[in-house]
């Protein structure tokens, strides 16, 4: 049994948190600004229109989904940008040279991604709280779905960062994979509003379950049974972590 490098893991976690806190405008202030824009657009443009089948006003329906979308995108951005920046600047070799196992590296990266996602969600919801009638109805469900989603997206960001050779590669994954999957995860609509074929498409999008479960935690309503979906979500978390561990352990696209 090899000794665990606790200090190294903690340091890497701290470094990753400090990194995004160094660019607060981008990582903390921007979500607050985005929240205000959503407020202006959706709160006043959509008025008191209700979401069909859920008996809830549209803006209230939107807010938890938007918070989840912000969490997912920020978790992905945290790991992917750190990795690609490290590769472009040559700093990634310090992660390879340091006495850190794949478990320690993956844990530190994903923990930092979760922290960023949680901060973004808190800021986002904090700005909108006075304008919307939401409550922490099921805090455990919120926590589980929020943290799980952040881990999955942080993991995908880590894998994308390992795969990418330049910023353009990351932009490609962000724009052609992450953005469509998050926008089409039921953030802006209830799946019941969609034609049958699109409903089926939604059911194979893992982010749909994350968004819907997270929303259920706040509103107590949703398109799926969040307790039944937990298996899918937790299974995705395990698969993501295992994939990250295996790829880092192999030095995939990092070691020649």
């Amino acid at each position, binding site marked *: 049994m090899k000794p665990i490098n606790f200090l*190294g893991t903690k340091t890497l976690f701290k470094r990753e948190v400090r990194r995004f806190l*160094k660019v607060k405008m981008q990582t903390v202030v921007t979500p607050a600004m985005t929240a205000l824009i959503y407020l202006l657009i959706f709160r006043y443009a959509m008025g008191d229109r209700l979401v069909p089948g859920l008996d809830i006003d549209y803006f209230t329906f939107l807010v938890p989904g938007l918070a989840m979308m912000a969490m997912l995108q920020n978790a992905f951005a945290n790991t992917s940008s750190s990795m690609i920046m490290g590769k472009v*600047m*040559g700093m990634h070799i310090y992660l390879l*040279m340091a*006495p850190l196992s794949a478990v320690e590296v993956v844990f530190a990266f994903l923990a930092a991604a979760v922290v960023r996602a949680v901060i973004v969600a808190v800021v986002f919801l904090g700005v909108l709280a006075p304008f919307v009638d939401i409550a922490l109805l099921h805090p455990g469900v919120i926590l589980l779905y929020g943290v799980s989603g952040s881990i999955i997206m942080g993991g995908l960001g880590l894998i994308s960062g390992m795969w990418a050779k330049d910023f353009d590669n990351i932009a490609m994954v962000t724009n052609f994979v992450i953005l469509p999957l998050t926008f089409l995860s039921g953030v802006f609509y209830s799946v019941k509003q969609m034609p049958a074929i699109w409903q089926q498409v939604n059911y194979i999008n893992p982010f749909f379950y994350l968004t819907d479960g997270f929303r259920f935690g706040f509103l107590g309503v949703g398109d799926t049974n969040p307790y039944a979906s937990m298996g899918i979500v937790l299974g995705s978390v395990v698969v993501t972590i295992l994939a990250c561990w295996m790829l880092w352990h192999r030095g995939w696209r990092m070691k020649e």
Partner: protein
Amino acid sequence: MHALEIQGLGKTYKNGKTALNDVSLTVPQGSFFALLGPNGAGKSTMINVLADTVRPTSGQVSLFGHDLFADRGWCKRRMGVVPQEIAFDPFFTPIEVLRFTSGLFGCKPDKAWIDELLERLELTEHCSKNTRQLSGGMRRRLLVAQALVHRPELVILDEPTAGVDVELRRRLWGFMRELNGKGITILLTTHYLDEAEELCDQVAIIDKGNLLTAKPMKQLIQDVASSHLWLNYAKTIALSEDDKSALAAYDPRTSETGVCLKLGRLEDGNSTFHQAYEAAVARFGPPIDAGVRSEDLEDVFLRLTGKGGVVS
């Protein structure tokens, strides 16, 4: 005990290029070891294998008696590597970078040691600047500090002074010599062969992935380096077949008005200077000027790696 013991190390890249071919060498503990070779010889590949950024195709490496591949964590804590390419983290200041690097290697940041490193590497006044604001030379010195911050027992420097001005280079070597004096083993690759000759007590030369020689520096210069007798004449000298035959023992060469004869050692250990000189005078008459030039490390390096052509 050896600081580093490499056995049959090989690396063939996916494109089929063999960078290391069955290289075996040992780096004695406490030595200042020069690893020399022309560009593309395989030096950086060897260092990258040690640093765990390149996977070897074959071979065994042990570090202070521990298997590098089986006990990576233990070995990594005792090794500090200065990479050849400048790498810097644009988010942080040098002092933050050093604290993080120390932590990553499992060492609680030692403020006194970090301050000393910053001072010795002349970074103190820049320690709170963002690394983006540092010059190339400063960034390279920061890499040296990063390699030392966790107090490794083996320091590997892959051309650490490229782009560093002469005066600073001199002070950096002074610092390295001091660390070596305290028992730290230093493995160095450099293009400044005069520095390697001056600093290092052990040397290995590799070319095209093959180890050409590895021995103590003094022994290499003694065993391999040769001396040449130069004689200058007022007229152009051309070697006739008779001249070549008469001077065959001295491997004669000419260059316009000059004649160059390779000197050897007699059985009693004395140089063949006198015999060579007499032989030249017998063929071409007394020269207007003459002198002896001994090969230094650079000459030996060029000759062994076949890059030198005619040694002049």
